[in-house]
């Protein structure tokens, strides 16, 4: 009663797939899985315009389309198909399991934004098409080789601008409102303890609550931090004098 793994089953790959696991002819395969390859084909073609090096993607797409049409013309299930069409992640700048920084040069310096873009695309590819991890081509890329200022410039600064803008708007409006209601000017407001508290609440609020959903998220996070402790202490909740 042993199941032979990965030897070509009879009704294999009439649907050459980008995600190899959907080629298994199990009955548990939901229709959505077999639709996936087509969807990812489309998403690849949408990535096309934005990427610099499209050669490999286009080639692999063409190969897939050719295979698909050939198989469809076959009609019914072919007998033992030896080669399962599989596309692995390929990119000319991806060398030996890491990004070759020499290929990312622009004006004599490394174009870190392009490295980040390439890594994002690679992770997206792997998320949609999980691949087998191989010992011959181990992946050793570490995101810490990208310098901290590249991350700052690309991710932190735009968000900081947004949040500071929000805080400034709220600050100006509240200062005006308080002044018009109480007559206390901005400098005098800063000396008042209640106003300082309001300022603190505003800053914390702007930092933590970026979207409406964040309020619920924060509440859940707080609950989560003590949930495990409560589960452990449960046994002590009903300790007390008992006669057994």
């Amino acid at each position, binding site marked *: 009663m*042993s*199941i*032979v*793994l*990965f030897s070509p089953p009879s009704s294999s790959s009439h649907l050459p797939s980008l995600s*190899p*696991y959907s080629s*298994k002819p199990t009955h*548990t395969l939901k229709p959505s899985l077999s639709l996936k390859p087509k969807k990812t084909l489309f*998403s690849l073609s949408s*990535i096309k315009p934005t990427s610099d090096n499209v050669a490999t993607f286009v080639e692999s797409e063409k190969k897939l389309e050719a295979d698909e049409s050939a198989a469809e013309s076959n009609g019914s299930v072919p007998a033992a198909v030896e080669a399962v069409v599989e596309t692995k992640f390929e990119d000319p700048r991806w060398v030996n399991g890491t990004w070759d920084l020499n290929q990312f040069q622009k004006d004599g310096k490394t174009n870190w934004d392009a490295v*980040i*873009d390439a*890594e*994002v*695309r*690679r*992770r*997206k590819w*792997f*998320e949609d098409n*999980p*691949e*087998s*991890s*191989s*010992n*011959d081509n*181990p*992946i*050793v*890329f*570490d*995101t*810490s080789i*990208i310098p*901290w200022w590249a*991350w700052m410039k*690309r*991710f932190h600064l735009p968000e900081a601008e947004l949040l500071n803008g929000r805080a400034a708007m709220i600050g100006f409006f509240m200062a005006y409102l308080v002044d018009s209601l109480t007559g206390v000017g901005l400098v005098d407001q800063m000396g008042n303890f209640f106003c300082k508290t309001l300022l603190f609440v505003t800053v914390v609020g702007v930092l933590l609550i970026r979207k409406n959903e964040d309020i619920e998220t924060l509440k859940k996070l707080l*609950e*989560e931090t*003590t*949930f*495990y*402790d*409560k*589960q*452990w*202490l*449960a*046994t*002590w*909740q*009903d*300790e*007390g004098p*008992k*006669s*057994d």
Partner: protein
Amino acid sequence: MASLAINTHLSTTKSDHKTTVNHRRSLKSFVGLCQTSPETTNSLSLTTPLAKTRPGQNRTRRPVIVAAKSSPIVTGRNLRVAVIGGGPAGGSAAETLAKGGIETFLIERKLDNCKPCGGAIPLCMVGEFDLPLDIIDRKVTKMKMISPSNVAVDIGKTLKPHEYIGMVRREVLDAYLRERAAKAGATIINGLFLKMDIPESLNSPYKIHFTSYDNKTGGTGIKQTLEVDAIIGADGANSRVAKSIGAGDYEYAIAFQERIKIPDAKMTYYEDLAEMYVGSDVSPDFYGWVFPKCDHVAVGTGTVTNKGDIKKLQTATRLRAKDKILGGRIIRVEAHPIPEHPRPRRCAGRVALVGDAAGYVTKCSGEGIYFAAKSGRMCAEAIVEGSENGKRMVEESDLRKYLQLWDKTYWPTYKVLDVLQKVFYRSNPAREAFVEMCADEYVQKMTFDSYLYKRVVPGNPLDDLKLAFNTIGSLVRANALMREMDKLSV
């Protein structure tokens, strides 16, 4: 008192939380607990106050021992204790009881049971339980962590030559521990526990109903009863003893595993190496693994929240390991539940739960064998001490002492692993950061030290600070990349 404030907070917020805890008592009883045993409330804090209470602990323990000493002497015979379940927890409990001079009965339903299990034991278990080296099939000294985007990191560089993770076959380990218990004087009964009769009066015995399979091959066994004074429930995740005492339920994960016999050439790669695959394709809240066994590998995965998808997750795990297990043949498929947290009640009357029955499996790594054996031993030691080697009757307070000691000793370990799981198994970017962090030597050293010796060793504070900095950096980078990824898919 700060601890009083913590207690107030806990008991008031508990009521609006969906747990299965019996919230019958008001704040008063918790305060009462606080006064008799301050060390339990201190178990909440992970900092040094734990050390400070140790001298205090002896002083406050005295009154509780005196209470047991006032319980009646058991005349004409030794204390009788039944251990239900003959796994690591039951075996070590029975051995400790028998060595302590107590009349022990070990009831196990299947003496040749091959419990589906990862089978990894830490180094300290070999020393603490005097395990002979020949029950260890393999000594794993290298591990590979593989991220969702297949970034592979090798860990194990910091291990010293004598350090390893032992891989055992459960049937071998369990049989050895049971045999040692029998040699120490315990009576091994091949039977299935059915139910127990809780005694009406204070010191009357418990009556256990079980089906005995002794000297029977197949067919139904004979219904028998046994009268004992105390019971240790070591019957695993679906514990019947727990049900009998109304211990409550816990959340559990399903671990699904396939044993695959791979060609010898591929087996040499797994000679002393185990792999861990993380990713939402492999498991949304746990990890997939390839563990080497005696002559084959076990490929599996687990999940708490998506139990229905377990087959899909297993297929994904096999896919990720495909290159390395190509040409393999599945020889066995197995699944088992893994508790996620302790049951609400681990002790009632003179019945205590240990091991998986109590829910002593760590988060993040899902390790249970060592904690099962250790808790069995600790509970047995508490019974031996409370009964003065079987001369006196035990009381619930003696069993509670085992719970106190357990919580105090291992609470930091469990909490740290819980925090790790919450932070690093949350999402794909968190897993990528996790694998990235594992490349750091300091992390590897801390991880292995705490796993192999079950000590939360505080390292050099400067290194800890650097580690914290790097962790936050990794998490921030990975999350930033994920937001870019989301932009791509939109």
